């Protein structure tokens, strides 16, 4: 353990921890933009600069030292922090009200902390890039006028998904996040997993047609056998979003394109909403009583005439464990072991 002092408060942390770790342990806020706990540190945004033993360092990268004295708010640190945020804002599309990240935006949070005044901003020249929004992906868009080049999406694509579909491209003030060959996201290697937009601190990578849920329910993804933990976002009587459950040991919050975006079947108008009975080759809506009585009667009749093994049931790998239990129990109650499901398919 290493003991150090952050803003005069003593704290002991593991050797190899960063100043940011130590500050967070003390509950001391240090502004960050390019830092993300899931990813390797980058140190590019420079907004977490603090003074450690009299030298300016990035808190997200600088390792703690025994007896180190850290000042998160020294005038030198404040100067750099403020200039960096001012510069970032001069380069950023500030139309916040139409941005999906409004009020959840990391840049807003950091700007609030360092204190941005209209007078200071008026001194700067606007340098918002004029670039088209990449709308090619059906689920999300990349708006480079809101991008602060924190590289979180780039690292996410490399370190979380691993497909490395995006990277920094070009140089200097023209630096931007690009796909191979600078094609649209939909034409690139991108797998649309959406991990990047979950982590984007601003509205640069944002869902299309986003509706903020009014409540969330913890559940499990209904697709493949991985069983990712999810939160279903509900608004009224509709499911409007899915996000990964960070605490799930299975997926640590990660999802794939189907799990994150493939929830529209739930509220789909083609859903079966009433029992149907086929009469003269045509389906006719029926009441539950009618339908279930008919089924029960035909099952019992069949068992009686041809023996219980003339009945067979195919259960479902899509249904719950409890439902599978009841399904096989019913068939077995009816006297047959003709139960199977698609395990082999």
């Amino acid at each position, binding site marked *: 353990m290493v003991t150090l002092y952050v803003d005069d408060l003593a704290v002991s942390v593991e050797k190899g921890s960063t100043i940011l770790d130590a500050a967070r342990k003390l509950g001391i806020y240090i502004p960050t933009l390019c830092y993300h706990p899931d990813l390797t540190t*980058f*140190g*590019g*945004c*420079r*907004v977490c*600069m603090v003074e450690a033993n009299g030298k*300016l*360092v*990035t808190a997200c*990268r*600088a*390792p703690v030292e025994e007896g180190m004295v850290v000042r998160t708010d020294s005038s*030198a640190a404040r*100067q*750099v922090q403020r*200039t*960096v945020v001012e*510069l*970032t804002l*001069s*380069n950023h599309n500030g139309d916040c009200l139409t941005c999906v990240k409004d009020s959840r935006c990391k840049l807003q949070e950091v700007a609030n902390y360092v204190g941005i005044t209209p007078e200071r901003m008026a*001194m*700067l*020249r606007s*340098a918002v890039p004029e670039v088209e929004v990449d709308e090619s992906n059906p689920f999300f868009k990349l708006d480079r006028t809101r991008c*602060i*080049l924190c*590289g979180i999406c780039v690292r996410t694509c490399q370190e979380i998904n691993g497909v490395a579909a995006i*990277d*920094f491209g*070009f*140089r*200097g*003030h*023209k*630096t931007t996040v690009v796909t191979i060959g600078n094609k649209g996201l939909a034409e690139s290697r991108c797998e649309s997993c959406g991990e990047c937009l979950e982590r984007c601190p601003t509205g640069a990578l944002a869902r299309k047609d986003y509706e903020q849920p009014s409540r969330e329910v913890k559940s499990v993804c209904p697709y493949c056998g991985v069983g990712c933990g999810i939160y279903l976002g509900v608004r009224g009587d509709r499911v409007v979003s899915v996000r990964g459950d960070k605490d799930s040991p299975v997926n640590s919050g990660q999802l794939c394109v189907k799990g994150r975006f493939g929830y529209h079947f739930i509220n789909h108008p083609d859903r079966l909403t009433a029992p149907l009975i086929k009469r003269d080759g045509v389906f006719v809506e029926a009441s539950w009583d009618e339908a279930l009585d008919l089924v029960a009667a035909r099952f019992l009749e069949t068992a009686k005439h041809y023996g219980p093994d003339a009945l067979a049931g195919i259960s479902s790998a899509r249904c719950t464990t409890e439902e599978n239990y009841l399904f096989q129990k019913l068939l077995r109650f009816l006297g047959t072991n003709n139960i199977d499901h698609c395990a082999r398919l």
Partner: protein
Amino acid sequence: MRKVLEPLRQEAIQRWQALQNSDKPVILVGAATCGRASGALDVMAAIEDKLREQGRDAIVRQVGCIGKCHSEVLVDIIKPGRPRITYGHITPELAKQLVEDYLVNDNPRTDLAVCAASGEETDIPCADELPDSKHQIRVVMCNCGHIDPGSIDDYLAQDGYMGLAKALEMTPQEIIEVLKQSGLRGRGGAGFPAGRKWESCLKAKSDQKYVICNADEGDPGAFMDRSVLEGDPYSVIEGMAIAGYAIGASKGYVYVRAEYPLAIRQLRLAIQQAKEKNLLGKNILGSGFDFELEIFQGAGAFVCGESTALVLSIEGRRGMPKPLPRPRTTEEGLWGKPTLLNNVKTFACVAQIIHRGAEWFKSIGTEKCPGTAVFALTGKVNKSGLIEVPMGIQLKKIIYEIGGGVAGGREFKAVQTGGPSGGCLPADLLDLPVDFDSLTAAGSMMGSGGMVVMDDSTCMVDVARYFLEFTLEESCGQCTPCRVGTEQMLKILHDICEGKGREEDIDLLVEMGKAIIDGSICGLGQSAPNPVLSTIRYFRDEYEAHIREKRCPALVCKKLIYYRIDPDKCQACGRCLKACPVQAITGAKKTPHVIDLSKCTKCGVCFEICPDRFSAVERKTGQAEELN
């Protein structure tokens, strides 16, 4: 190992002497990139044609750049029994005449001669006594312009490979001791003691280590490294091999920008020859030491000159400097292995230091900065070119004696050192000694060796803008201060140059510049504001003139100048009237001409075309009375 080298050496020396004492004339053509750009290859062809035509036999050789770029194309002629005479500004036609006059008719054409190797030719100044030679000491460039860079024998005859042969008889630690004693500091710009760097690389434990030569010379106007590689690639190769032996590396890379095709070709040839002589490859000189060298061509990104970015670039990744804290390249460099990275000129010094000893090296330059500095002297100076001077020489000696003073008889205004992120120093700092520490203290830096002289027709705000534009384009883009900060500063400078500057802009630039220096990841960002900060520091009045009076004192910023025809001087010749591309000038015969400023685009054609004897068109700054 020196024993093994000796037969190679003796053979080379014999050949060299045979050449020097040849009964045939020897003609040397400076054919580095600078010479070629001036037509050296045509000159050489012309000489050969003429010789054939005249039935004369002579040895014609290509050599590297001797540094007198102001007089390209340079041709040296050594007639048997006569001193070597250097001719400047030679064209193919002049070359033919020269062959005819001197070789056929024995007229040494003193009118074309720049200098001679000794004072025997009374009408030609002696090379050593030329003012531009007097203050120069050649260490790094000692062979440039003398040897044929395509002949390893030429190099061996100049004591080449004596350093490596000696080093192979020493222990790595002994080599590093010599280097430490010599006080050699890295020539890439930062001036880090080379011995300490080598030592930390030696101490790093690894199965594989690398030596990298940084030849990614990217400063605009700098061509020192290129000239060394073109004129004497062997010295760099030998230095790298010594480094490999000293730190325990068996593999080296020369990272050259692809824009240097001739340097790459010479280097490739030199590597090939060194391998053939077993001065590179397996079991060098029978010592058991193996060293392979590979050329890696960089794509011309300025930031790849930064060591960690360069390493990433060789690994095939995007060249972005790694933020601190990070492991030193000497401990974790290329492919994660300990890597020694030095500049071309650093390696070029090493062989001689080992061969001649640390004391010899320390006898040159200053105590803290021994050795020489190589500069590409350019700008508004009479004799631009490549110079090598002892560390500690005063700026004014470089500019006025070696450079021959400000061109066109104009007044000196500033000198910019250290490339695009160096600073501009004013006239009252001309006594400043040139070394790593003094330049840094004055707000500039040594850099890799660019030196641009500016006269009074230079606008310092415009200069700052020019250099900032370069760093802005070349920033790797990863950190906010450098990427957005330089853009913001540039926008402000644009505004100032256009008369849209605000009173608070100067303080804003200073404040922002400091934050960029404090906040940036690498040396590029940490020095990018230097041109702005140093011009504000020394030429603040010019900024104020732009902002407060909307005036550009140097008459450069287009938006702040206007043209006026002095009615008293105008002879109504009509030249400007005809030349004006936008018909902004009115007038008639015997009626003085007038410029309609609302139409004028300030192209300056009228100013250029007005005959000197009239000088009626004036360039002015400030608010034009006519517009008031």
